[in-house]
């Protein structure tokens, strides 16, 4: 994945000079932004489905991370810590009625066709490419119907490819609860994307 330096260039160099007494991996903010911005932005974009909100909250994530860098302990990865901050910001943002109101009127909402059209060029026929776009659109729409916790856990697991203990650390949920949300989300996804829907009644459910 290519990193983009736009946001990294916006942070002034003076932020790297004022370092706390104990050195942390977050002291060089520009380097941290360049390394982790695509991941944070991707997660926020998939969660909020609004590019303006994702952009703003991405910037806010790194600003808060840098402000609270003294509290960062090395018991987790930097990416895990950043995703946790981003998730908390997204929760606070979506709780407000203002977000729900502007979500209906926003022109920066991500359309499912944009996601489906973002597939890499594959050496395949036009028909198979069309089928692939349809598969992506179905997953995108199904993820949108999940509950907020199920969606968060599903995205952290299959989009960010995080381990279950890391997801528990990010979300602040017990591991058993994380598994429960993940398995329910998987059941919903597999029920809607089963190539043989007639057989779904014979599937074992937890």
């Amino acid at each position, binding site marked *: *994945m290519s990193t983009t330096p736009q946001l990294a260039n916006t942070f002034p160099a003076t932020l790297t000079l004022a370092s706390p007494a104990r050195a942390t991996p977050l002291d060089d903010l520009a380097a941290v932004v360049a390394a982790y911005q695509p991941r944070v932005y991707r997660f926020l*974009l998939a969660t909020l489905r609004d590019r303006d909100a994702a952009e703003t909250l991405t910037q*806010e994530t790194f600003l808060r991370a840098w402000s609270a860098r003294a509290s960062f302990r090395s018991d987790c990865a930097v990416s895990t810590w950043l995703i946790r901050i981003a998730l908390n910001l997204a929760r606070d943002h979506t709780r407000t009625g203002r977000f729900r109101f502007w979500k209906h009127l926003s022109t920066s909402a991500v359309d499912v066709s944009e*996601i489906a059209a973002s597939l*890499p060029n594959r050496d395949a026929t036009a028909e198979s490419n069309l089928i692939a776009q349809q598969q992506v659109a179905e997953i995108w729409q199904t993820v949108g119907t999940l509950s907020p916790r199920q969606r968060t856990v599903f995205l952290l*697991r299959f989009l960010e490819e995080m381990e279950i203990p890391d997801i528990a650390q990010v979300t602040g949920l017990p591991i058993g609860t994380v598994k429960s949300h993940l*398995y329910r989300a998987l059941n919903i996804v597999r029920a809607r994307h*089963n190539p043989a829907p007639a057989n779904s009644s014979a599937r074992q459910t937890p």
Partner: protein
Amino acid sequence: MNLHTATLPSQKVIPAQLMPAHLTPAQLDALLSPNASARDAAAAEAHLLLCPACAAELDHLRDSISLFRQASSNHASRELNNLQPLSLPTRSLLFPALQPVHWFAVATTLLIALLPLQTFRPRPAQFTPAESYSVADTTESDAALLDDVDREASASVPTSLQALADPTEEDSSALSLQAPTNAPDQTPNQTPVQGKD
């Protein structure tokens, strides 16, 4: 295809009672996740050899989720490339900075809200010179009136040292006739006081 029968690669049909249960969500997660443990994956893959339905379902889901991950990553990267350089925010998104027009709107709203309160607030009684003068005149006139009353009351009672009226003057007979009724206790040397108007 019946889910409770399956064919091995050697085309041998397995009866339903010998078929293991289908993939659980935990096994499906272990197969879909790229970094699942080998033990969970091995147990699930053993089932896939016997259940083509689960194998087809797994292939379809694995392909869909992989495509979803690729498409989301590409879309996010493309959006980041299109972003304009942003300035560092000075305030939190949850507490956005107020622009001057916002301050003006807040001040105007407060002014409009407080104006009726100021208009209908009860005012204290104000001092007016005209009323004070009229009060003063009334007091003086009342005092003068009381003085007149006192003077008349005191004057109506004749004193013993008051000089006698001249009997030669006019209406002396009338006065002499009225004297017993006005002052019955008067001595013979006293003459009745001439009545006042």
